[in-house]
């Protein structure tokens, strides 16, 4: 019943497909006088136009026609940056009713990502969502199901699995993928993400304890900002750009940078359809509300591959990737002689769709979509749950639940505040 073709994009795709079979007609004839192919410029709406959301305005040159925020200051700032006339909303549900929107960008804090992605997909929109994909594993499952059921396109806003220099590695991910796939390093592999290998876990995003209630500023609809999150008295340290420091909304540097750092590792290791079977943690006692620091998080996959997050940068000798037969260090250095020469002879990895526009127009899955994005976000969430609970956890990657740990399983779907649900 919800699978009606209700988006402009579906109509275009179907009408184009229908014509393509018959004959090739010039586009201006097809559309009539004054016709400009709508596919020439896709339209988008942005939900959450704080600093991150305003950064989405120029993405891929699509046209912003609507913006939504629970803070009127954000709306004003964003409006000033958009040359065209733009509709403004406080409630994203009203924005989703606009038939003229092709893509919905979600740049709110993570506690909203799940609900908004599902609702946007149900409204017939393609979705471009900020990382981390969802705040819980359960919400991620729901997003995956909704995107699949509605046939929408979904992309997550991190990109190191297909472009750009990969942090301290001094290369994009492609040559690394070729080397890993070739088996030169042997198997299983160990990946270390730390200062030594070129990363920063951003512990300055920890939260504050004992926050005192303060009056809510007039420009902010705090009720809607909280949405599904438990009610806690307002304090400016909870919201805008500080929300990362509280478990209710995010998971500190691990929550915020985790998917940036971990998604390409998952791609390199070929783990896009699975998850680790164990996560171990070394961390101080965690506060009930504020995110704290941690020292080490270690993930182990069923085949023995490991990912180590070294928060204290303890292992000064760490390679980025280490296998039984060789290592690759920061700056693309390696202990394997002639690696750069070998690289030229290695086959190219599978091609990926690297612009969302292409994905939207061809209806082919984006390089980082709801399925592999769910898995790399699960890496983040497994780490967050282990840190919060302060214990090692066994995980079943098929059933997507913890093995013999009721407490951990209660964090797979955290309850949402009435009336929100996913």
């Amino acid at each position, binding site marked *: 019943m*919800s699978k009606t073709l209700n988006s402009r994009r579906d109509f275009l795709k179907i009408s184009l497909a229908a014509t393509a079979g018959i004959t090739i007609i010039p586009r201006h004839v097809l559309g009539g006088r004054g016709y400009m192919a709508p596919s020439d410029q896709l339209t988008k709406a942005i939900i959450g136009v704080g600093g991150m959301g305003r950064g989405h305005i120029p993405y891929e040159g699509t046209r912003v026609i609507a913006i939504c925020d629970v803070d009127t200051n954000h709306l004003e700032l964003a409006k000033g940056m958009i040359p065209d006339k733009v509709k403004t909303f406080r409630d994203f549900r009203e924005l989703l009713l606009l038939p003229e929107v092709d893509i919905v960008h979600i740049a709110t804090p993570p506690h909203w990502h799940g609900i908004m992605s599902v609702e946007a997909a149900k409204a017939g929109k393609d979705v471009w969502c900020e990382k981390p994909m969802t705040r819980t594993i359960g919400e991620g499952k729901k997003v995956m199901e909704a995107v699949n059921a509605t046939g929408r396109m979904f992309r997550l806003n991190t990109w190191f699995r297909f472009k750009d220099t990969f942090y301290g590695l001094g290369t994009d991910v492609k040559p690394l993928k070729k080397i890993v796939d070739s088996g030169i390093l042997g198997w299983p592999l160990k990946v270390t993400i730390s200062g030594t290998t070129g990363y920063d876990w951003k512990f300055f995003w920890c939260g504050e304890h004992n926050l005192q209630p303060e009056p809510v500023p007039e420009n902010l609809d705090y009720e809607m900002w909280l949405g599904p999150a438990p009610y806690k008295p307002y304090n400016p340290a909870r919201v805008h750009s500080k929300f990362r420091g509280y478990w209710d909304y995010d998971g500190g540097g691990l929550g915020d940078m985790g998917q940036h750092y971990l998604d390409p590792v998952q791609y390199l290791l070929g783990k896009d359809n699975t998850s680790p079977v164990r996560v171990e943690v070394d*961390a101080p*006692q965690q506060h009930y509300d504020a995110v704290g620091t941690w020292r080490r998080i270690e993930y182990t996959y069923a085949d023995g591959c490991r990912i180590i997050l070294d928060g204290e940068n303890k292992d000064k000798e760490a390679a980025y990737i280490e296998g039984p037969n060789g290592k690759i260090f920061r700056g693309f250095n390696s202990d394997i002689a002639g690696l750069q020469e070998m690289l030229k002879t290695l086959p190219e990895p599978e091609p990926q769709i690297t612009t969302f526009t292409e994905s939207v127009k061809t209806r082919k899955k984006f390089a980082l979509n709801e399925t592999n994005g769910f898995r790399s976000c699960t890496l983040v969430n497994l780490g967050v749950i282990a840190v919060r609970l302060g214990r090692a956890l066994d995980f079943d990657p098929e059933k997507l639940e913890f093995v013999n740990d009721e407490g951990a399983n*209660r964090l797979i779907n955290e*309850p949402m*505040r009435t009336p929100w649900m996913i």
Partner: protein
Amino acid sequence: MNKKIYQYSLILVFSFFAFLSYSQDAKNLDKKVDDILAQMPAGDLVSLDGLMGELIESGPDGFRKVSTLLTAPGVDDDTSARFAIASLARYSSAPGREEARVVVENGILEALESHTDAEIKTFLMNQLNLAGSDRSVTALKKYQTDEYLAEPARQAITSIGSTRTVGTGHVTVLTKKEKAKGFVLLFNGKDLEGWQGNTTDYFAEGGELVVQPSRGGHGNLYTGKEYSDFIFRFEFQLTPGANNGLGIRAPLEGDAAYMGMELQILDNTAPVYASLQEYQYHGSVYGVIPAKRGYLRPVGEWNEQEVIAKGTRITITLNGTVILDGDIAKASKNGTIDGKEHPGLVRKKGHIGFLGHGSELKFRNIRIKNLSSK
């Protein structure tokens, strides 16, 4: 006389020492708890587990002491007490720590009684998300009408219930006895095979039939087949204020409550239903025969129900108690108690269905024995 004075002074001296020793114990405990709290937050997980173990060892008194240190925001800094209680909830939620969990859950429930501040109560309820069991579900029930606390109470109940579906999932099977008696499963736990109608808002998940009216579907869910006389058994789990109904001998079109019969499924305890007519509460043949009240389990727990429809006689057993045993022909002979037309009462057969009224709830273990197949 002297003897009496001697006795009194003995009692006095004894009580004095008893008091001394009691206050010494209390002092020791206070000191122990203070020492533990002074070490929070623990720097690593080994020392954290050690501190948690000591707190558990200090038993209900130790927990009580920690919980008295909780203060409302803006009053005092209770950071270390909150560290302790939240960590106890997490610690005790681990496998193999069931005994610790009893201490923690009892401690939280007791603290919930003694504290009056809504923010402190909310904090305590939040800890039950991890540490709570069915006992908490029962204890939290009374907060369902509280303006501020209904929400955290509902969240804790939801969280406690979540592991039942997140776990291995519910396995739908007939018992040997039922099989021998001729019962068959109406719901396979995996999909809606054998059902028709609103298969959007009703769906199978984790072995359960989940109702989520937000999914954009419309109408009721009915069995594919029609039934006349039968024994129908099922389990259901309500959410606060949930309203659904079991339609029997119903046609696929029209209002099943009148064109067939509706056996009410309702959270009787919800404040919005405080002043319903007696024939509108759970188990009633809607508008026709009222059922006994007071046999539903707390919202969030599973209820078991059996419906026997044999000719004009309807018998309903809820959680082992017969809550309705009546004859629809007699009950409607001189007009029904709601004064409305119920043409469905004379129907000989029809579909069995779940009649949605916009609420979320779950069903499972749906099975039937057809009494009129011969």
